[in-house]
């Protein structure tokens, strides 16, 4: 199983290296194609602008039948990222019931970047942040910017 998984991951890695996504840099961990280090640049016109966020992408052995696991290594003030040392993210195509083998890692990374631009408070892991995002946007933006300045350098 992992042989075909590796084949597919290698293929995807080659594709993504050939056409890099805007604001996304990938550092594979040597020899282990199942773990990727990613750096996301905070998109313009978002409170995360200027920040450099480190993410870990872990691909299951049964990839692409099971979705990859994405987590933020850098602390981030975001309704869809758990505010703990795991920094886990679980929504949309990352959920096993919504995942399809035809989805690609590129799509996952695009979604992650899209969420920085536009958080999804309806499907939040941090409910208090989601509430703040919906009801007190100014305060949310301020804290998110502060966190970006302190952690995402």
């Amino acid at each position: 199983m992992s042989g075909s998984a590796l084949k597919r991951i290698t293929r995807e890695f080659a594709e993504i290296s050939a056409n890099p996504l805007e604001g996304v840099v990938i550092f594979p961990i040597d020899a282990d194609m199942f773990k990727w280090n990613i750096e996301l640049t905070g998109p313009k016109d978002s409170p995360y602008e200027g920040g450099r966020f480190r993410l870990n992408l872990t691909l299951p052995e049964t990839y692409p039948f099971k979705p990859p696991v994405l987590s933020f290594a850098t602390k981030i003030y975001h309704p869809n990222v758990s505010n703990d040392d795991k920094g886990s993210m679980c929504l949309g195509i990352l959920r096993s019931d919504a995942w399809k083998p035809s989805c690609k890692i590129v799509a996952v990374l695009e979604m992650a970047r899209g969420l920085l631009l536009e958080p999804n408070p309806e499907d939040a892991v941090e409910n208090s942040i989601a509430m703040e995002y919906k009801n007190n946007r100014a305060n949310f933006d301020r804290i998110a910017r502060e966190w970006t300045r302190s952690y995402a350098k």
Partner: protein
Amino acid sequence: MSAETLRASILIFPNPPTSPRFSEAATSNNTFGLSLSRPFITTLFTAGHNSGDSIAGVLHFPDLPSTSTCRNISTLPSTSLHDDLPKSNFTSVALFPVIGFAPWTPRCNKEWLDAARDDRSVLDGFVFYSTNHTSTIPRHDHPYWNGIKFRDYGFPIYGMRGREGQLLMNKYTEFAEQQSILPDINNATGRARVFLEFDTGRGARLPGLWLFLLIVLGVLVAAIVAISCSMHLLQWRRRRSLRNRVARGEVDLEQLGIKRLLVPRKILDKLPLKPYQTGGTIEQPACSICLEDFVPTTTTVRVLPCNHQYHPACIDGFLEQQSSLCPLCKASVLPKGYVPPHLTNATVRREREVRRQRRREMGGGRIHRAWTRMWKNIGWGRGREGMEGTELRPTITQTGRQRGFERPEPTPSEPGKFRKVMRFVFPGY
């Protein structure tokens, strides 16, 4: 039980009367002891005595009727033929248990026993001794017994070898003749009698408490076995019922999220393998597993019932080892009414729970609701949930297809040894 050993000693009935005592410790010449074991003693009839019961009493010749011709057997001392029990005013002496004693004479045996029966209130047993020094008493089925029915006498009957029998006989006569008073240990006086005791062996007998515990244990084991058997039967019937319902298409285990099914090779082989053609019902230019493009008319593709196509190398392993659902549309590859080869008790229980929950959500019976509430209050329901570990709790609004399997495959996590045994003995609970 048959007698293992026989012991004879002297018992002194003191005068003035106090409780009788043995003379073993005495220094007087009245000390006497004798012991005899199998095969020199014969058990003719046990009278229902168990191993460990002691049969004991003072020797006593039964009183034959005055008309009996057996009264003048030459080997008997004339003095011994009357009731010689020490009948003092000390009542316990008269009530002291006795062992009937008589020489083995085929002609008179029945008369001895009949006479002994008159002393039944105090008689503990009866022993025949052989008139020949070296011979023992024949077995109960020997023709010499002239068909005496030992069973008709309510007391145990034994036989002993002639030599020891004669010894006892002599002692008996001696004491019977000495109607007089004997000096006792404490210089007190009393009457001496031969005391005889049969040991029926203690080894095989269990003390009462142990026996009780053994019975309790036995009852417990029997109850557990009975419960276990009925539970196995019940589970077997439930499995069969579920199997039938699945086969009839009434239950879709996969869709209800009860059990994740796999596709056996046999069914997989029936799925068509075709050369790839462009412009099918769904446009699929590439295998969505390995992302490689299909080459028209060259690439062989596996076509699932939902019309999704994959490389056989990409999809076959997945269907055989991980899931029976199409990775793209989650439609089942299995034919309708497919019954998985192994339906476990856990699956049966989960299906029952889903059914119960459905009934409840559909309004269910009031009694059923009260029942469930009661279980919940006792805290039993929670415990049972915990046991399964990875349980899926689908609701009516979410079918397995919409929800998928968020939790890992509901195969039970590796249970402990104790739990395994419990599950084997009491399946389904």
